[in-house]
């Protein structure tokens, strides 16, 4: 009997050790893409670009392969000025596609990746005639035309180039809704704030920051923050509050605003604060 207890005990203990290892690792959930409702009536180009960036990093799964060398398995799109690169490629004598400009080239490389394969990135043995990239308007990624436009806008805007794709019209909303086959999550996130005041209230900024004086509560007063910090610095101190902390203050500000705020809410708040001079 004691043998049974000893061996069982040993076995259970070992199982628990393995379980423990899984607890030491970061707990990340791989969520299925959730279709976001985009209000096309109020959509600005900035929102559209932000949407493109989000698609690029998440639903589009682009960053799985397109990342800096040596770990990347595809050209480092984020590292390149894609407009300049696109024009170079259009001029390449190997280019046989139909695109006339950078936007057209980027779109083509998303829906027909094998049309032009960048040298050395082709499927092994295909002599750069076949791309390992899936057509992203097809399963399993299934981006819609609007979503691909958003990605193009993001790729153009991130290096300061002019955005040539046009904003989607409200009539196209049906197309967006169509791609959304995943059922909405019930009881999900609270509704995004519509105005700055709502947003400031929602994230309870004024419980720590005085908005209309330089008085210190928990954090510094923000009446003149637009004079002290640039737009970029304001944005950073919301998204990543512990990066730069005003001298003499504890690192007390929540670090998860980046996840909680919608792009629009963040933009509103940043804009509002930047104007406080």
């Amino acid at each position, binding site marked *: 009997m004691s043998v049974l207890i000893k*061996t069982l005990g040993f076995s259970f203990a070992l199982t628990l050790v393995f379980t423990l290892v899984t607890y030491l*690792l970061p707990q990340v959930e791989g969520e299925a893409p959730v279709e976001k409702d985009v209000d096309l009536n109020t959509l600005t180009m900035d929102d559209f670009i932000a949407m493109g960036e989000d698609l690029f990093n998440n639903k589009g799964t682009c960053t799985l392969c397109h990342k800096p060398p040596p770990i990347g*398995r595809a050209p480092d799109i984020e590292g390149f000025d894609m407009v300049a690169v696109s024009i170079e490629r259009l001029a390449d004598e190997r280019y046989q596609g139909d695109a006339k400009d950078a936007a057209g080239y980027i779109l083509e490389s998303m829906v027909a990746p094998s049309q032009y394969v960048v040298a050395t990135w082709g499927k092994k043995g295909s002599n750069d005639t076949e791309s390992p990239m899936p057509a992203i308007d097809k399963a399993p990624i299934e981006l819609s035309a609007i979503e691909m436009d958003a990605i193009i806008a993001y790729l153009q805007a991130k290096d300061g180039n002019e955005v040539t794709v046009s904003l989607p019209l409200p009539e196209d909303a049906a197309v967006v809704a169509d791609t959304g086959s995943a059922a909405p999550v019930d009881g999900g996130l609270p509704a995004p704030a519509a105005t700055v005041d709502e947003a400031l209230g929602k994230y309870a900024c004024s419980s720590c920051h005085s908005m209309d004086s330089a008085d210190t509560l928990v954090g510094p007063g923000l009446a003149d923050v637009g004079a002290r910090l640039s737009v970029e610095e304001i944005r950073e101190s919301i998204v990543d509050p512990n990066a730069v902390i005003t001298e003499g203050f504890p690192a007390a500000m929540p670090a998860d605003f980046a996840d909680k705020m919608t792009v629009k809410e963040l933009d509103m708040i940043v804009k509002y604060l930047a104007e406080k001079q």
Partner: protein
Amino acid sequence: MNRLFDSILPWGKALCWAVLVALLALGVAQAAGDDALSRISPVGMVQVEGEPPIEMPVAVEEEVVEPMVAPRPTRADYPNIGVSSRAIVWVLAQLHLFFAALVLAVPLFVLTIELLGVFTGDERYDSMAHEFMKISLTGFSITAIFGGSLALALFLLYPDFMAYMTHVFGAQLMVYAGLFFLESFFLYTYYYGWNAFRYGNLKWVHLTLGLLLNAAGMTIMVVSNSWATFMMAPSGVNEVGAVIGNIWEVMKGPLWNPINLHRFIANIAFGGAVVGAYAAFKFLSTNDPEKRAHYDWMGYTSNFIAILAFLPLPFAGYWLMAEIYAYSQQMGITAMGGILAWLFIVQAVLIGTILLAGNFYLWAGMSRTDGSERYKGLIKFIAFVLVVCFLIWVTPHTLILSASEIALLGGSHHHILGPLGIMPAKNVAVNLMLVVTFLSFQLYRRSDKVATVSWAPMGNALMVAIYVVAIANIIFLGVYYGYFTNTVYKVGSSVAQVASTLVVIVAGIVIDTLMFKNAKTLPSHWGRIPDRSQYALFALPIAFTWLMGLMGYVRSSVKTHWHVYTVMKDNSPDNFIPTIGYAGNMITIVTVLFLLCVLFMFWVANLSGTRQSKPIAVVEGGVA
């Protein structure tokens, strides 16, 4: 001679019946596959001499049947029973797979051991093979019970998905059911016929039954594998899931054979590990030297089977992973570079446990022989290499994450360990671990022998040179191509590393086989092994079981939010990839349940050998 026919005859009859049943099953499958028109169309043709053939007005009614496309259930279409459907299916599927792996593997090496007994004439092999069969017999019923429960749970909880799967596979499912009759028939005749067909020609009848048992089992496995691989990489259907190919095209997806091979090998390793734990338990429970010798030997053989099958497993896994990348780069990276990448650290811990336990057992086993002193000094070196490689292997590597995941982890690169965390370093570590494990094994095999061939010094020099050069080559390939050339060469060099490892293993086996032919054997004492060594035989099946559970989680998760990748979306509440901690809990639950079921299986096996002594009548009141 007459006696032989007498005993064969009933079996022959039964065999005919079995074949008949199988043919019938195949016939039914065939008939279901043909279209009705071709079955009723006339065979011959009517024609008057000298006249042109009569045009028979065939009423061809073009019945336009819309092919069934993959259903698109909404969340409301999934029955909600209050508990996570996925968790239920997870537990049942995993338990079914554990037992299926066990009962497919055991007959495989039982047959091999039995054959070994026939060729060596050593009765010990035969009785051990019989004992292996005995202890796993209940496993067949347990497999069927969990398989049935799994099917019920799937039909109940995922009705749309199962409707689609049965539509796609159709009559193949009937063939699958038919195979179970064959499997049971051969199982029971093989097991219960063991002593009836023990010697002479009848032994060959018995071995044939064993072969057919394995053939049936293997077919069952590859048929059911096709369902899993269809879900990962569907073939024979178009992009909306309508069936456009025949059943063979549906089954023969790009991942089918890699999975078949991988599971086949892994089953053997798993089965060996589980029966090894049985032997260890029996060894520890007795003080009878004779029994201890028997169970020590049984444990050693099981461990040998497990480790031998385990060594080629990484290569089969490599092939599977390469095919996944070839099928869909995205799927490959989801498995190896996305959030699932963390779990390869757990995998490293598990495989490290397996290798360390296997090595430890071999080292402890050296105390059985008097000649092992010669090699004891090398153990320190092997242990050192194993530990260093293990540490490199578990070093976390760079991961590809979405922005919020990077925020959660505080960056995607590890500052100091970065260079050790990427694949080339790990490839070096894994290959070196395999090489030194083989060295342990080789030393153990040599420990009770002294070579007598004249070229022994040359053979030894060659073996040493092979180890030294192979290890240097593996390190060179990993460091040079991994860090100083481009990605394509980096990936290519890992194949050369694997080839180097295989050269060591093959050369080791060949040289030792030739060199120790007619070698002087030193005395060896079965049963002379410390008790603590037996715990390695428990660590092995626990780690194997856990590892299977873990890899099952990856295999299923790479489909992300799809039931059938790219064809049928998963819209159930559980369509996300759970965290590694949640998966760890689930895997531990199934491992513990499996452990308890296996205990039951062993207990039942031993019950058959126990007989209650007749109670002595107690006479009360002194009246007779």
